[in-house]
């Protein structure tokens, strides 16, 4: 095979690989409870909640919002782009990961500052109140309470957001 043909082949292969990547249009959920909403609005009705590391296909974009389809169950809705990242998220072995990650990815996940490091830090630390942090993390406001709060305070309409989602 001539050098020129070989070069062309390599180039075509590289472009093909790039095209596959660019055309994938998937994102990983980068938050523990990623809300999938019926509309691209901050207080839009939540139709599904996706876990950390689950993958979605991006179908459309509108401002800071992505219309997505989740890869596991095929549900469609809108997610805020800040809750998604364009790289695979891997978890520790034993943790559930949406979208079917390879064993290798699973094994490589959850490294760095993690629960194991926190436990070690807690054992070493003085005057650390993790019980209060756990209590704080359990604080939730329900969609109903939020809706009432906004309406009674003359803030945004329940489905929308003043000037948002442009």
């Amino acid at each position, binding site marked *: 095979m001539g050098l020129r043909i070989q070069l062309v082949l390599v180039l075509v292969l590289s472009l093909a690989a790039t095209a596959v990547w660019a055309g994938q249009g998937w994102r990983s959920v980068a938050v523990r409870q990623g809300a999938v909403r019926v509309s691209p609005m901050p207080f839009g009705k939540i139709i599904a909640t996706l876990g950390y590391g689950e993958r979605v296909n991006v179908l459309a974009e509108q401002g800071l919002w992505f219309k997505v389809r989740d890869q596991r169950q095929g549900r469609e809705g809108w997610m805020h782009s800040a809750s998604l990242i364009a790289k695979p998220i891997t978890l520790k072995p034993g943790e559930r990961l949406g979208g079917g990650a390879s064993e290798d990815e699973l094994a*490589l996940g959850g490294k760095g500052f993690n629960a194991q490091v*926190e436990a070690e830090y807690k054992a070493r630390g003085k005057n650390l109140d993790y019980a209060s942090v756990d209590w704080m993390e359990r604080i939730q406001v329900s969609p109903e309470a939020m809706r009432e709060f906004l309406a009674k305070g003359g803030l945004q309409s329940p489905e929308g957001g003043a000037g948002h989602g442009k």
Partner: protein
Amino acid sequence: MANKRTFLLAVVLLCACPVLVAGCKTTDVIDGLGAVQVGGFRLSESQVGALKKTAVALEKAFTDITPEQEYYVGRAVGATLLGKYQPRTDPQTVQYLNLVGQSLARVSDMPETYGGYHFVLLEDEGINAFAAPGGLIFISRGMLRCCKDEDTLAAVLAHEIAHIQLKHGLQAIKTSRLTSAFSIMATEGAKQAGGVQLAQLTGIFEDSIHDVTATLVNSGYSRAFEREADVAALEILGRAGYDQRALVGMLGEMKQRLNPQGLDFAKTHPDPADRMADLAPQLAGVKTPTGMALRQQRFQRLLGSI
């Protein structure tokens, strides 16, 4: 000839990059190449070495702090603050504070974080407010006293949400610590951190938490970061339907109350007058939003006695 080789190297890297982004390690791809024979050329060992180096650099840049790691940093910063100050736990205060906070966080450019936004009032007379990375937000009773209504309270919380959105807390961590952490993570391979590595990582974690809390509690952010957070706070307040001028109102009140020698906001934040001057041009033409009186009433009813 040399040019062709350089071109081929670039092509191999181009091929490898999408694979890396799609989840495989470029170094594995290159290791897999073995005795490299590309386009009729045999790459020398040093050339393969150079390829590997580039791939490793790519991977390093890729190994940013993940949202999960940011969450653990935030929890530790929160545990430190809550070890120092008592939180107010009566359900009415907790619910109201979190409704105001959520109404702002949801319209911010980062409406969700790994562990979510949570807001708490601290039993502390100093004028303080802290944002731990990842979404834990703390406001002192002293700071609450600077707030005459819900819109002013919203201004304080919006400013703290902005610090989280802009990742100011994480930026307080010295880069050298993260470089060390990443190199330990790289040597860790596919297995879980062993004893020595865990101890090393925990040491780095400890130092990183110290960097963040020392900045929040003692040294404060730069005026540039504070300005950035103020500007983002204005945007958040506007989107939520709150009065953007409440931020300036709060700064004015703080200027009155702050003891310049104090160990609270006086020490960690730029002079409120400077911040007010920075904000003035942004507020020209801002109109009074609707519903302020309604919000003032419920603020008085729910937090007026604290």
